[in-house]
């Protein structure tokens, strides 16, 4: 079985802070990580490899520095890694990104494609289903449990108020949730292999068959026209009192606001 996992390198948004003076994002010193949902997708692929045997390829579209994320995936146990990078791919929205990734996937053999549900920097959850649409595949979003049964896959998928257990034929695309599993750590041997034995292949524009009008900034129907930080709400008062006084104060404030 051939499994391709799509991953994205993202800034760890839990570490992003706002500069209160300039009201802009402080990006310096923010670590880059494999997007958590994608990492869960990679772990799911590696578990399927452990259980059924599989060749796991990891692909990522990004800047050259995203190679680090692919090395980490190799060190976790992926067999092959491909970085899709070119200035022509830059500035892409979800539609243009999915078009590029779908074009790259056409170069590969796959029975199963796994993407994370969404990336923590954009939170759109769009690229997975859009890749599936471009490739004419079934997509099952929000997978919480995955089983393979011959040439079929059985996926438990999460909604707000229910689970669906779905069965479909391979090939298909699933999007993974962090709830799916707890990703393994890199092993020292794995890290050694990732840097000494295995290579990260680089694919540029010339390596993928795609209409240049449909990628990058030009191929993106959506445009960001403005970005801003939310003006901070005027802070209320902070009190450091004895517990009993605190409780009484809260009740008093609730009365003022007619809550009780």
């Amino acid at each position, binding site marked *: 079985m051939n499994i391709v996992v799509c991953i994205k390198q993202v*800034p760890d*948004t*839990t570490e*992003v*802070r706002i500069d209160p003076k300039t009201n802009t*994002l402080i990006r310096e010193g923010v670590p880059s990580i494999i997007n958590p949902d994608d990492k869960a997708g990679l772990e799911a692929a590696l578990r399927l490899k452990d259980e059924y045997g599989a060749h796991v390829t990891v692909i990522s579209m990004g800047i050259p520095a995203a190679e680090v994320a692919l090395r980490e995936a190799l060190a976790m146990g992926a067999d092959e890694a491909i970085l899709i990078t070119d200035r022509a791919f830059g500035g892409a*929205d979800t*539609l243009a990104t*999915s078009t590029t990734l779908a074009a790259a996937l056409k170069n590969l053999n796959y029975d199963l494609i796994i993407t994370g549900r969404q990336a*923590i*920097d*954009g*939170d*759109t*959850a*769009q690229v997975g*289903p*859009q890749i599936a*649409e*471009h490739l004419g595949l*079934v*997509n099952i979003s*929000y997978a919480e449990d995955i089983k393979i049964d011959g040439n079929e896959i059985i996926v438990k998928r999460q*909604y*707000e*108020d*229910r*689970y*669906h*257990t*779905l*069965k*479909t*034929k391979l090939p298909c695309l699933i999007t993974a949730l962090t709830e799916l599993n707890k990703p393994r750590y890199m092993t020292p041997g794995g890290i050694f292999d990732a840097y000494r034995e295995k290579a990260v292949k680089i694919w540029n524009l010339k390596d993928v068959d795609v209409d240049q009008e*449909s990628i990058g900034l030009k191929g*993106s*129907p*959506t*445009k*960001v*026209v*403005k*970005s801003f*930080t939310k003006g901070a*709400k005027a*802070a*209320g*008062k*902070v*009190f*450091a*009192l004895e*517990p009993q006084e*605190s409780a009484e*104060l*809260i009740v008093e404030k*609730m009365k003022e*606001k007619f*809550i*009780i």
Partner: protein
Amino acid sequence: MNISEYKGIFVFAEQRDRKVQKVAYELIGKAKELAKDLNTSVTAVLLGRGMKDEAEKLCYAGADKVIYADHELLDEYMTEPYTYTLHKIIAERKPEIVLYGATAIGRDLAPRVSARLKTGLTADCTGLAITEDETNEGQLNLAMTRPAFGGNLMATIIIGKHRPQMATVRPGVMQRAKYSDRNPVNVEEYKTEIPADRKNVEILDVTKIIQQRMNIEEAKVLVSGGRGMHGPENYAMLEELADLLGGTISASRAAVDAGWVPKDRQVGQTGKTVRPNLYIACGISGAIQHLAGMEESDFIIAINKDETAPIFEVADVGIVGDIFKVVPLLIEELKKEKALSKVQ
């Protein structure tokens, strides 16, 4: 693409168990405001089975028209039968805007439809407005505002050269229009034939998550616990406090990830957006992702040991203290108040 051919606003009216979801009514409310600026109409699109009465209710909720497709493959949500039908309706009718709820279903369906139409889609919007195109005089665009970078940044996005302009919108953010059963009923029953091969998944099982508690998006009072609760057993006191105030409990991502509280209780960027009358944050430091989900609450009380916790920056009343001391005393005080009001 001739943009001027595209007219009207469509709202995808999500249903589950043959009941239109609340977010659809919220979208109709917002769509009516936008329609005024565009001098156009609002059409709700309902895909389901045996839901004619619900289709009529969409008119009472403010839709000028409802397109209702009734088919057995549209009863329980499946990606492809829904995509097939909705894509067909949009391709035929050419609306300029299509809005979806940013729910599990909306966020699965909308990207699939957008890729089939090769048009733009903006996820998880919290603000929508009409603006004039900067380069093309007279052209009106939908300005879609959404949080990015885990809520650290807001971005306003337009789709200038494609139609329809599509967006998923966070539940709980937009206001419903006034409901009136005197609104005219205008329901078009859309005949849909879905080719058999479009049913490309088999639903083996549907397990409902039984909600014993009030939905946090609907609660007027939320008592929310975070990492500082130290364990699931300590939520009992938050439940008691919530009960006294006629509310329910919620949690930060840390508490949900630790498995103390179910996922449907999670407030924040990857959870739900809430705006109750009262939000009490207990042992929640206030990561920006959490604040994004609750800072619109009318009145916020935060109790936290750490005086530097960011939650205090949005709290109306901040208490620097030990939740395990303050909360039990607060419960006692509220019980006293209740007893007192009974006597009066």
